[in-house]
């Protein structure tokens, strides 16, 4: 199994996990934190491997990751505050 297939399976697993959490209507700050963390991991895998930015040096590699971290952090703040 090559690395892209492993990443694909990971992405689908996280998506299923997210759906099940929603399906069970679980709501708490811990659940929100877990969901946001899995969203970050999924986004990070897409950015680094599917978009191929892992092979790129410097700022162009990190701009989408910085965007993802910022958005997820601000979303988390929006829920926690």
């Amino acid at each position, binding site marked *: 199994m090559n690395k892209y297939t492993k990443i694909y399976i990971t992405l689908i697993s996280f998506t299923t996990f997210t759906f099940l959490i929603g399906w069970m209507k679980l709501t708490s700050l811990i659940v929100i934190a877990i969901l946001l963390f899995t969203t970050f991991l999924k986004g990070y895998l897409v950015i680094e491997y599917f978009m191929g930015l892992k092979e790129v040096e410097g700022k162009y590699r990190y701009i989408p990751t910085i965007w993802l971290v910022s958005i997820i952090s601000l*979303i988390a703040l929006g829920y926690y505050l």
Partner: protein
Amino acid sequence: MNKIKLKYPPGDFAIWMIIYIELLTFGLFFLGYIYSRRADVELFNASQLLLDQRSGFINTVLLITSSFFVVKAVEAIKTMELKKASKYASNWLLSAIGFGGIFLVIKMGEFISKYQDGINLSTNKFFMFYFLLTMFHFLHVLLGMIILFNLYLKTKIQGYTKEDHRGLETGASYWHMVDLLWIVLFPLIYIIR
């Protein structure tokens, strides 16, 4: 052994300017949603329950799978002999377009169902964001499919080689951005309460 890193992202650099701008635009929408939600949490939670999480889940799986197919198309062109690579890549791209098409059909079904229930952009703030975000994303999927179709046509005539596949990477990058945006949108709109 350290692998030499590329100076610029894959594909045409112009697409990356577009990607950064798109990320910023959607990011502002996401923040608008979150901070509007804070003003009326009950309304947002009650409205969110009216969404079909199953179709959101299926659509996420479809887009991720479609993105994976595009990765396989690029991988085929980079690693295989031209004739075989073009055949494989065109098949992967056609599958990616097909999955994108199913995404659009499901999303359209969701829009129609909401309109039939009397829900639209002006129903409340949650649905204003729901329609704005998902329709805006819908248009990006549509544009992405047109781009993928053009890549498909070029692979059919063996237009990409191991040495020259910049156009393919350009279109692929755009498609992955569409996937990335949905990855954030799905839990935000459909799941997290």
